[in-house]
């Protein structure tokens, strides 16, 4: 359904994100290059050079400074954003819990990529998994369209609850792949995100505020509980904002997507770009009469344990596909799905763990088919399997 003033363009995920930023026009953007997010900031820099945006762009000298400058700008009352990947996210990692702890509504666009060593610049989820406990809301995109939409949703969500948000797209597979993207009207986006409502800021000279105190043993604990309350409130806020976004765009997003799950006996749980490939496989196998389905998680942090537990409660065989490895342990999404099912169901279902696509390795339809085949044949062990 095409809304008034919607344009349809062929854009890479990176360009689509830059386009969303152009329409939001943050006050400040700190930029530092790292593949595969660089196309976002380069595109935005060119937009500024051509007079399309007025954003104060700070070309910082490292990612640690990128987030530090963004913290300063946001605390000063400006709408401030940045972008990063992989080693850059880890370089700034010490600042990420500070953003969350200070309740700053910063959005960081992520084009997710593998972590060194060895060095690899390609797509997977290792980087964002490494920082999943630091109090940032994490949202995964499947396509360039989502990457565009998620940027707009993230900005509104961040400012709604004063929490930082990381909208994530798979490096290269989404960031550098040209896809069909519906771009909303500039005015619609501006109206949707609105103006930032600033509560306390460094530029409120009449009410001087101290940001970032020391808190000793007697006060620290409660700060963390406040932070957790803030994270949990993101679920309701996310649902509300997605519903408003649906009215605007016609595209309905939810915490997760249930694809042909109603009467499924085997379900794959997945996140990000590869959900697209997996949906093709589900369609193919359904055509052959196989009762298969897919659950694609969009809101990863805070994790919707109860809701996903309920959705998976009736599914006898589940395979969780992680695009990240957690050394010495089961992978991240797998662990969260097991917890969901454990809490949401009285039975002990068969849940298999798979790791795919590390370091940008392509995942083909036949790889997904093999997973469904394993499930169908009862090949569900307790060891992680690798789709190499």
């Amino acid at each position: 359904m095409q809304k008034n003033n919607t344009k349809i363009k062929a854009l890479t995920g990176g360009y689509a994100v830059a386009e969303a930023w152009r329409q939001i026009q943050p006050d400040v953007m700190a930029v530092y290059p790292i593949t595969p997010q660089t196309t976002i900031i380069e595109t935005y820099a060119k937009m500024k050079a051509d007079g399309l945006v007025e954003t104060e762009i700070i070309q910082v000298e490292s990612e640690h400074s990128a987030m530090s400058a963004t913290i300063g700008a946001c605390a000063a009352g400006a709408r401030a954003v940045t972008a990063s990947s992989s080693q850059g996210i880890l370089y700034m990692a010490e600042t990420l819990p500070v953003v969350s702890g200070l309740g700053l509504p910063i959005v960081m666009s992520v084009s997710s990529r593998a972590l060194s060593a060895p060095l690899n610049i390609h797509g997977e989820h290792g980087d964002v998994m490494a920082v999943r406990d630091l109090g940032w809301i994490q949202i995964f995109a499947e396509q360039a369209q989502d990457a565009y939409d998620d940027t707009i949703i993230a900005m509104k969500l961040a400012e709604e609850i004063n929490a930082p948000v990381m909208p994530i797209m798979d490096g290269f597979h989404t960031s550098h792949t040209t896809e069909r993207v519906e771009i909303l009207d500039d005015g619609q986006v501006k109206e949707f995100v609105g103006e930032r409502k600033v509560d306390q800021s460094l530029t409120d000279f009449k009410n001087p505020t101290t940001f970032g105190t020391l808190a000793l043993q007697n006060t620290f604990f409660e700060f963390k509980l406040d932070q957790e309350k803030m994270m949990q409130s993101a679920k309701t806020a996310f649902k509300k904002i997605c519903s408003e976004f649906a009215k605007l765009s016609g595209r309905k997003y939810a915490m997760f997507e249930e694809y042909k799950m109603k009467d499924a006996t085997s379900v794959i749980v997945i996140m990000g770009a590869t959900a697209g490939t997996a949906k093709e496989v589900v369609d193919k196998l359904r055509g052959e009469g196989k009762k298969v389905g897919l659950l694609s998680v969009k809101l990863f942090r805070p994790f919707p344990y109860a809701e996903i537990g309920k959705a998976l409660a009736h599914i006898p065989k589940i395979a969780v596909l992680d695009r990240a490895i957690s050394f010495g342990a089961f992978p991240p999404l797998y662990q969260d799905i097991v917890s969901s099912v454990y809490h949401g169901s009285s039975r002990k279902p068969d849940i298999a763990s798979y790791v795919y696509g590390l370091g940008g390795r392509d995942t083909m339809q036949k790889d997904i088919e093999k997973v469904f085949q394993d499930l169908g044949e009862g090949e569900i062990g307790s060891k992680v399997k690798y789709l190499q």
Partner: protein
Amino acid sequence: MNKDLTKKFSSGHATCAGCGIPAVVRTVLGATNDPVIVSNATGCLEVTTTIYPATSWKVPYIHSVFGNAAATAAGIDAAQKALQKNGKLKKPAKIIAFGGDGGTYDIGLQALSGALERGHDFLYVCYDNEGYMNTGGQRSGATPYGANTETAPAGSDSFGKAQQRKDLMEIVKAHGIKYLAQANVAYLPDLKRKAQKALNTPGPSFLLVLQPCTQLWKFPTSEYVAIGKLATETNFWPLYEIEDGKYTINNVSKQPKPIEEFLKTQGRFKHLFKDANKDVLVKIQNDVNASWEKLLKKV
């Protein structure tokens, strides 16, 4: 307490008895009537003035992590420019970043360098107590040659720090900023004058302020001014300014005191007065003389 001195920075903070950092802060903040925003690195100043739920800061203040006072200041600068552009801010504040030597010479050097290179409007004040004092006195890039610290201690096999201090003034000068100065908490009128100049200079400016640490340089709590004065009177810590690349020395002692006069007052140099370390004392005096001559040539 004095209403003027506590207008922007209150009493009741937790710095050590005999600490000179509050005097540095009050003098710098008092050098302007414009609103100010403070960006502070982790360290002595930050942890003693922001113990939740209390704060000493009567001006807007932010601390985030250790090595990013300058980068945070850069973000505040960009925000003020953006907010002015869209009419949300009438008059911007003066942005003042405070960092100790650890947070400036070492872990914060990259962020400082980047902020200077990009030409942000801010003043960076480094209170230099020549070591990581908040964590108990470990050596930093600012610790002088021969000093005893927790991580480069003197012992039967060592005379303490074996490397020279970084010349941070030259590093900052190399960024081509319009105004930077070396100052000393023992000379407050000089510091105030320099702070005023710095705050009235557009773009980035820098003050390096010696601040003797009673706890870890190991001297009586009443002595930081006397010891600070000796640092300058021995030419160990000259007072000077660099404006548009031009050097001006503010202290010219007709006859500088021997460096031993400064060293003998502090426990951190006690070991240098042993026979075994005689050569170290000679080298320190020679180095002070050489640095002074080098500085004179730049005028």
